């Protein structure tokens, strides 16, 4: 089985409630991420708790992309 990254996305500023999603790849700082129709930029990636089996648990902070 391939790795699964369970990600807690929190959006800095604004009113977006954030999201919890499974991802196939570990998010990287600077990467763009779409939550529904909105796009954000990754500013921080932290391991939230130790991996278990094929699952890694991450916390990712997002912000609106700089124009």
């Amino acid at each position, binding site marked *: 089985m*391939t790795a*699964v990254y369970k990600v807690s996305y929190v959006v800095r500023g604004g009113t977006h*409630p*954030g*999201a*919890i*999603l499974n991802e196939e790849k570990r998010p990287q700082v600077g990467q763009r991420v779409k939550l529904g129709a909105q796009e954000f930029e990754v500013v921080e990636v932290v391991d939230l708790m130790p991996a278990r089996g094929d699952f890694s648990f991450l916390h990712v902070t997002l912000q609106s992309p700089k124009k």
Partner: protein
Amino acid sequence: MNLPEILSQVELFEGLNRDELENIASICKEQSFRSGDVVTRQGETGDQLFVIWDGLVEVVHEEAPHDPAPRTVVNLGQGQVFGEMALVDYGPRSATIRVISDRATVQAIQRDAFMELCESQTHLGYVVMRNIAADLSFKLRHQHLVGR
């Protein structure tokens, strides 16, 4: 990919062997929804747990005396679980779940069939209950980080 293989990519079932995944698959019922559909409503009685197969839902806390406007607390996507609180504590639904993607597909698991499996197959029951606890812990950690 067949249903047991797909279930193996859901954290709730991490640690189950092939036979156990097939037993879980046998009690899953697929349900499809469209944007705006309500899957569960806060305050109602619930006896199903849901695994999101595809799509995105929002978790909404309806108005309360101390919180007069409905508030979306988080969005959940593929592989995530909802309805687990009412499943294990038999209480009313703690939030309304509404589909916000064009379409969403979930696997619904009935409490009676689920509890019967957990009680008759103790390894399966232990692993799934541990994973439900871990999932609730993850959601709590997420909430602690919102508005940090």
